[in-house]
């Protein structure tokens, strides 16, 4: 069996939801046993993003002012969004938009590792799904950084993967949004 077949996701944790007017923000925190420099590369380099992120980037996201095309992986029809890098303070803070969503990544050195925080706005009905999807992406990122990549699990692969349904339900319960509307 490969590492991908062995992979299981842990319990839902490290996520919060913030509401500001009509705007909902999902905040996800993950501690990684790898340096901020290494994590930064995984967040910005297209070859690394391809191994874990839910989108493909046509160029590096590591330079402020860059406009990149981000292709959603696994969408039912081709979906390309423009992204403009608004802040790129390597290896601490990265901000860009993914289509109409704002993405803010903060990398804090903790011991020898990194506390990674993602802020992303998201439609209310999709908060728990988004949290479950990013949870799995972060697990896959951790494998990548550890030198044992298992290949990204996004879109249909994430939904088919049993853990996604459970995580979706657990996050929905944590956020108090059992009913989707």
């Amino acid at each position, binding site marked *: 069996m490969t590492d991908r077949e062995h992979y299981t996701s842990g319990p839902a944790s490290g996520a919060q939801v913030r509401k500001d007017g009509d705007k909902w923000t999902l905040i996800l925190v993950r501690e990684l046993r790898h340096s901020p420099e290494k994590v930064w590369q995984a967040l910005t380099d297209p070859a690394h993003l391809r191994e874990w992120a839910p989108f493909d980037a046509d160029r590096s996201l590591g330079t402020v002012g860059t406009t990149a095309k981000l292709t959603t992986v696994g969408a039912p029809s081709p979906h390309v*969004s423009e992204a403009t890098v608004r802040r790129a303070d390597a290896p601490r803070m990265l901000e860009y938009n993914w289509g109409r969503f704002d993405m803010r990544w903060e990398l804090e050195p903790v011991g020898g590792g990194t506390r990674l925080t993602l802020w992303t706005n998201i439609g209310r009905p999709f908060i728990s799904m988004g949290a479950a999807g990013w949870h799995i992406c972060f697990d896959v990122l951790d494998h990548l950084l550890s030198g044992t990549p298992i290949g990204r699990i996004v879109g249909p692969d994430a939904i088919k993967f049993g853990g996604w349904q459970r995580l979706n339900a657990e996050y929905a319960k944590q956020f108090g949004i059992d009913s989707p509307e």
Partner: protein
Amino acid sequence: MKIKLTTILVDDQDKALRFYTEVLGFAKKTDFSQGPYRWLTVTSPEEPNGTELQLSLNNNPAAKAYQQATFQQGQPAAMFFTDDVKGDYERIKARGAEFTKPPTDVTFATIAMLNDTCGNLIQLTQLARY
């Protein structure tokens, strides 16, 4: 094979969902999202398992150009069939929709045309009975 879905381009999916449900009276059927991608469909409450209309974001140049040219030529982007076009005209107008054509007799039908506020003209069609 079955025809279960047709797609209309919209400039804003939240706005489109409000218009197609609150003004036109359709019901939300499926709604899921993956990042900025969102699969959003509505159906008629008269036929909840009938053909779905996908409200698809026009976020690419080909979609925008096609949608604008179609609108400028006065071509409807979709046609809905009704048994009471005059009644639907009054009902939808009362909810604030702008009609570019009131109920009008044409060959084999009575039609009306409205602006969906998302970049499209929509035709309502009631087939004539002879």
